């Protein structure tokens, strides 16, 4: 008896086709160019497309596309807080929710938020919190909803960038934009802004320094607002990775700024000189 009767469900147990496909190459090619033409060991982030204000009902919204990773983010609020029992009423509260659409990954996910999504939501929240002037919004809450439409790697990093852009589009007072960047460490070399295949491929391969790292960064304040690493890495590799991610964030910065300026111009066209 399926527990969730509201939606059409397949059989109790089903498996994705990808389990039965024999994978041609499980290890990443160790040198030279990557599958999408970018180079290893270079701060070669995927070109991004960003746009603000797509969702008319939301206070602010943003869409980001990097390769085939596509995300949409909406910001609602500031509105009166739902939880009245909170003792600290001098500050506003930020809520972040990140979800993957069930069809966003190669294997179908569930509509119900899993623990991985909860973990990512927390990471998005902690990355955004230092940038938002929450003391300006007493007794109110701001909701940030991120939906991953298509996941082709580095979803968390782009979610953070997209969410900060949506916050800015909503007119929430912020100290700075938050930019996210991730790398996949593969032995001695790194792959910046990895695709889904690069992210997951040979993760359990033997060898040192296999892991991934996501950093969120406030570029004009020069502060790291969020950091998460996975896998096993030496300290030197890790610090080098953080530096690389920061460099990657700086590459993204002008694009995001430009998108924001464009959105502001669109919302309030300058008075015509007549």
């Amino acid at each position: 008896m399926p527990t969730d009767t509201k939606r059409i469900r397949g059989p109790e147990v089903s498996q994705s086709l990808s389990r039965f496909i024999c994978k041609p190459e499980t290890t990443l090619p160790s040198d030279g160019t990557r599958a999408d033409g970018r180079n290893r060991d270079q701060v070669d982030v995927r070109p991004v497309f960003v746009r603000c204000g797509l969702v008319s009902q939301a206070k602010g919204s943003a869409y980001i596309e990097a390769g085939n990773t596509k995300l949409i983010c909406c910001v609602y609020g500031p509105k009166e807080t739902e939880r009245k029992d909170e003792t600290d009423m001098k500050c506003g509260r930020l809520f972040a929710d990140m979800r993957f659409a069930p069809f966003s990954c190669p294997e179908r996910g569930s509509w119900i938020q899993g623990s991985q999504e909860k973990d990512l939501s927390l990471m998005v929240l902690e990355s955004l919190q230092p940038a938002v002037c929450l003391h300006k919004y007493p007794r109110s809450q701001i909701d940030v909803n991120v939906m991953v439409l298509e996941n082709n790697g580095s979803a968390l990093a782009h979610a953070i960038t997209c969410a900060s852009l949506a916050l800015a589009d909503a007119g929430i007072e912020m100290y700075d934009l938050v930019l996210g960047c991730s790398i996949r460490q593969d032995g001695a070399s790194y792959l910046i802004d990895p695709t889904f295949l690069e992210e997951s491929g040979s993760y359990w391969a033997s060898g040192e320094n296999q892991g991934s790292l996501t950093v969120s960064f406030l570029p004009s304040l020069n502060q790291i607002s969020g950091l998460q690493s996975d896998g096993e890495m030496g300290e030197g590799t890790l610090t080098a990775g953080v530096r690389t991610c920061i460099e990657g964030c700086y590459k993204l910065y002008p694009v995001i700024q430009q998108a924001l300026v464009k959105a502001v111009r669109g919302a309030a066209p300058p008075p015509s000189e007549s």
Partner: protein
Amino acid sequence: MATVQLSEAEKVYVLHGIRDDLRVDGRSCEDYRHMEIETDVVSNTDGSAKVTLGHTAVLVGIKAEMGKPRPAQPAEGYLEFFVDCSANATPEFEGRGGEELGTELTNTLYRVFNNKRSVDLASLCISPGEHCWLLYVDVLLLQCDGNLYDGISIAIKAALFNTKLPKVLISEGEEGGTEIELSDDPYDSVRLSVDNVPCIVTLCKVGPRHVVDATLQEKACSVASLIMAVTPAGTCTCMRKVGGGSLDPESFFEMTEAGRRVGRALHGPLMALLSQEEALGQKRQKVGFLG
């Protein structure tokens, strides 16, 4: 998270103390509180440990069950973590209050062990694709006084050290299938290697400096902390920033270095203590929960 309320004056006092490398309880910035470890505290588990760190008390029980390996890793067993924040620790955890913190801690533990070398998962495999050991690592918070991550990771390491899996024999059954035979002798067991199991070190940024093993008071003064899971070899299996603040890249690099140093120094005495306790054997006097 269980928190305490501090007045501004108290915060200033704590901050100034830490600036001068002297904390409220007399420790310096990289000192741990008094730690007590006892293994084999719950008889119904396959491995258990209780760790008290100041007034933080954590109980870990490991139950082994036989299951089917995951399709993606047919020749490996796996670990399942669950952290329960019981209302014993603080009334805030009553009902669903502890759920958020519990999920956060659980997810971090999955991350810490999400690599090939922390636990030799291949040794948990009984027959590839068919049977494997599934270790349920259940963590219970009995008391909260800051620094839950470190306490939990130390307790998990001690409990994994204490875990004894019964030997299993696989033989061909009469009708072609396989037969599983469990050894009758309770002493005929397999131990897990904990040589690469990491310990978590939490560094709290308080003012310009960072402290290890922060109490709740110190945590209330800090805006951001860094969690690092450090293996005895000095590699880092998980790192994340927690808390609502941000960190300067320079101080971040300082903190990772300190974390690695503290983490590596933690493993030696811990392993010595565990093997010392093990050597006492049956005649060891159990302290239990009233110690």
